[in-house]
């Protein structure tokens, strides 16, 4: 893992490359709605994810975080509204090499070693690349997630945290412009969690990668440049952690979130009674 400092990374001024490309945000959603079976999981969301920054997607389990991420990646069915990713409609074929996606459960082959998993996914991603380049890329991502020493162990024999890092390493292959990470730090010990957040910030700062990271652990929110707070398929807030705390007069993002939830619930109740 990258140990550039022992301090936990704090969101400082984003080094993003605002000038890059056409200056459009990495993700822009207008009236984004997703229906799963009889349930409307996302209800008319409007939000943007700026480029080159770490955006946290926070909210209780079942609030629609994973569905939102799958919509961005283009694997979610029944998406309506507008959803542009890196300037193209979500799910556009050319986006498939430009987005790295990590599902909540590690999606790797248990009966292959970590390196064999990466070799295969690298071959799928860029079949045209010279094998030496691909091998170098595989070594780089193994080092990024600190698995070089376990590269030749079967994924199925690795610990839960190690397997989820193999899964993360797959997403880092080919240096994608946008990383969509669904709860990448769940079940990891504090040291690993800190190291991974350091990696995320390094990616944003040095490679200009945009990261959209979901979590239901509120203390991770403090490490993001921007936050999207979700609850029951709606976005309660889209702001920086500082602005959120100031706006709600709270000490922590957690308190700010609870404040916003209570306000939303109260508003919902008045709507019910006046109806």
């Amino acid at each position: 893992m990258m140990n550039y400092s022992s301090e936990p990374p704090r969101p400082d001024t984003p080094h993003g490359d605002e000038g890059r490309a056409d200056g459009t945000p990495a993700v822009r959603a207008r009236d984004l709605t997703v229906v799963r079976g009889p349930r409307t999981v996302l209800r008319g969301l409007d939000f943007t994810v700026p480029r080159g920054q770490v955006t946290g997607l926070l909210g209780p389990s079942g609030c629609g975080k994973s569905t939102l991420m799958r919509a961005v990646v283009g694997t979610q069915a029944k998406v309506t509204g507008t959803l542009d990713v890196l300037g193209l409609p979500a799910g556009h074929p050319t986006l498939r090499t430009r987005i790295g996606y990590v599902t909540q459960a590690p999606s790797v082959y248990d009966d292959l070693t970590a390196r064999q998993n990466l070799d295969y996914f690298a071959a799928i991603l860029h079949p045209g690349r010279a094998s030496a380049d691909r091998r170098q890329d595989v070594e780089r991502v193994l080092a990024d997630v600190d698995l070089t020493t376990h590269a030749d162990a079967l994924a199925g024999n690795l610990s839960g945290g190690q397997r989820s890092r193999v899964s993360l390493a797959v997403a880092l292959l080919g240096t994608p412009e946008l990383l969509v990470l669904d709860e990448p730090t769940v079940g990891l010990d504090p040291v690993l969690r800190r190291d991974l957040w350091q990696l995320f910030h390094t990616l944003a700062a040095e490679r200009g990668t945009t990261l959209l990271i979901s979590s239901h652990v509120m203390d991770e929110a403090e490490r993001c440049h921007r936050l999207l707070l979700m609850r029951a398929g709606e976005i309660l807030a889209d702001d920086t952690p500082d602005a959120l705390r100031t706006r709600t007069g709270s000490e922590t993002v957690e308190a700010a979130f609870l404040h916003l939830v209570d306000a939303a619930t109260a508003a919902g109740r008045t709507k019910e009674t006046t109806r």
Partner: protein
Amino acid sequence: MSTTHPATTTPTPTGALNLSRTTATAARVLRQLRHDPRTIALMLLIPCLMLLLLRYVFDGSPRTFDNIGASLLGIFPLITMFLVTSIATLRERTSGTLERLLAMPLGKGDLIAGYALAFGALAIVQSALATGLAVWFLGLDVTGSPWLLLLVALLDALLGTALGLFVSAFAASEFQAVQFMPAVIFPQLLLCGLFTARENMHPVLEAVSDALPMSYAVDGMNEVLRHTDMTAAFVRDALIVAGCALLVLGLGAATLRRRTA
């Protein structure tokens, strides 16, 4: 690490079949199997053991062994590949690797062709072993060329792969996937002419057996058994099995969705 290579400028065509993605997938499937030597051993040895068993069950009537043995050489690869593919594809679906692959620039055709290639290669080894054993050691009396037996066996393996792939879309668990074996394979087994000639069946069942691909696999095997050269009936049977395999592979591809609920 600022010297990142411009990954996005590499042209990576998606869509249609991409040879290197297909072979990478086939190599990956075989590599997975290599970590599971017991499965390979079972796949390769069980057909041989069954033939050995049959040979001595019909010790007194070598004609019967000829008939059933030749049919079984066509049926084994179908059943094995059906089981292996349906479980393997189900595992891709449940482990999330399928979703990951389809979010990557992998064509559905690449995935399916990769599986067909890997399991086809395995089927060649399996059939070669079983055919060699039957013809040279167990005295299976084949009038035609053993190569034609091998060809039909390979087509059957493809059909099994295709059926397994297709069926796995309708199985939500390994339990269900395994139950599709009796549901899809057993009726074909009963009606394919293995137990009794198809023309002796009730007319309705005979008509049904005419519509099932395994019947043609067994018919093709029996053509090789009885005739020295490639008959028109053999060509027709082989084409029907191949056609069915391609059709079901196409249906299997249609069950792979990039976007899922």
